[in-house]
């Protein structure tokens, strides 16, 4: 099963990229995610980074070990499962030209070899997972836009302060 959600964020791609590669921010903006632990001491997600993640779906926390398999700064960040439920995901960032960024989150999941029950389970899980992805994107949007306002306010303050002195 493949899910696809998108949102337009009023911020440049570099700010969005900062958020989605910050390993510590996922527990804040990813809805339903109960575990997000990067192997090793890295704080930034990069090609080859491995993360142990879980997301609550119905009666279980599902996930496993994932690895970042593609990393094009400020454009694409993709992962694939190493252990646990089969999953692939991708962040696609595209500048819209007016200082905003269109963010697309793709997520594909399933259990190979599980037959008809697996197919039914994927269908049953999709509304809940789709809702989690939508919430996650809106939380990301809020977080990034808030961060942009904070940065701009700090810049304006810094510009004013020398004049006041």
């Amino acid at each position, binding site marked *: 099963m493949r899910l696809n959600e998108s949102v337009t964020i009023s911020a440049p791609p570099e700010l969005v990229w900062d958020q989605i590669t910050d390993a510590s921010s996922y527990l804040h903006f990813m809805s339903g995610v109960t575990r997000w632990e990067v192997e090793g001491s890295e704080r930034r997600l990069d090609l080859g980074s491995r993360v142990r993640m879980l997301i609550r779906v119905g*009666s279980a*926390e599902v996930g*496993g070990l994932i690895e970042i398999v593609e990393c094009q700064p400020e454009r694409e960040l993709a992962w694939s499962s190493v252990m646990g439920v089969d999953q692939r995901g991708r962040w696609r960032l595209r500048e819209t030209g007016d200082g905003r960024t269109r963010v697309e989150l793709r997520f594909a999941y399933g*259990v190979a070899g*599980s*037959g008809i029950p697996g197919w039914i*389970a994927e269908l049953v*899980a999709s509304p809940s997972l789709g809702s989690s992805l939508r919430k996650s994107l809106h939380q990301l949007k809020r977080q990034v836009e808030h961060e942009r306002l904070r940065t701009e306010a700090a810049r304006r303050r810094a510009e004013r302060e020398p004049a006041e002195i």
Partner: protein
Amino acid sequence: MADPATVADRARSNGGGAAELNGHGGLRRRLAPLAAVAGAGRPFARVGRRLLAAAQDAATEVTGAAASRVGQRLRADLDDRDPDWLRERLPLLWLLATIWFRGEVRNLGNIPEKGAVLLVGNHSGGNVTPDTFIFTLAFSTYFGIERKFHQLAHNLVVTLPVSGALVRRGGTVAASHENARRALEAGAALLVYPGGDWEVHRPTWESAKVDFGGRRGFIRLALDQDVPIVPVVSIGGQETALFLSRGDRLARALRLDRLLRLKVLPVSVVVPWGLNVGDFLGHVPLPAKITTEVLPPIDLREQFGAEPDPDEVYETITEQMQETLDALDAERRFPLIG
């Protein structure tokens, strides 16, 4: 599911089970009076003795072969657990747990991330135990099917021809101290239900009661293997049917405890059988909400000293589990719905 030491003790006290089948001594003892009768009639004595010897040999051969097969299943082969098979069954388990039982397992993070651990649960649901498979699903998705996880079950469960093979692939092994020891030595997480058949067939109105029946074998096991105990408390299983009585007096009156090692002969009202005695064929569980809570791990020697008193440990653990079960019960507003 059952407590390892008590099952082994029961088998010994009943003079029986697999040990008796393996030795064939019990069969000869039971046939001895027949031999005496056969020998009493002088004219037929020689013929009778020959027939009896032939019958004994045939019976020994048959029971020996059966015992050998049963014995193989009772002695856990931990390799019977098939992680790939289990992985492919997870979606089906997830569907049942999510849609039918609205299962919820809380605080799995309390289970140590690595190494052997003894999970001690209260047991509910008669011969169909939804709390076990919901917990198995939750454990397997949380830690990954790569982590070894076994459950102890009554001999009957693992020796049945079809379902026995399935549960063994899922990691279930026959309840015995030896099997429990081997699983823990292999570094597995092991789920035991000390209350076993006594607790699982308690009346529905005792749903919120932890009742291990005084069985303390799990404490000795944890101490011998030096592994932490993690209590696992579930509610809802006893609402999946109307359990009326354990029928323990009925089982004693019919001598089932001696003949079949059955301490209980439960009486319940179930779908689809209606009034159900024994629950031997299982039943369709009602869609009761199952909630499970995992408590923090207990290191017995750290908490109770170098030589912990089993009675004190037993009281502490069962009291802690009872308090949790009371809290889970208080959360429930309606039967079945949760």
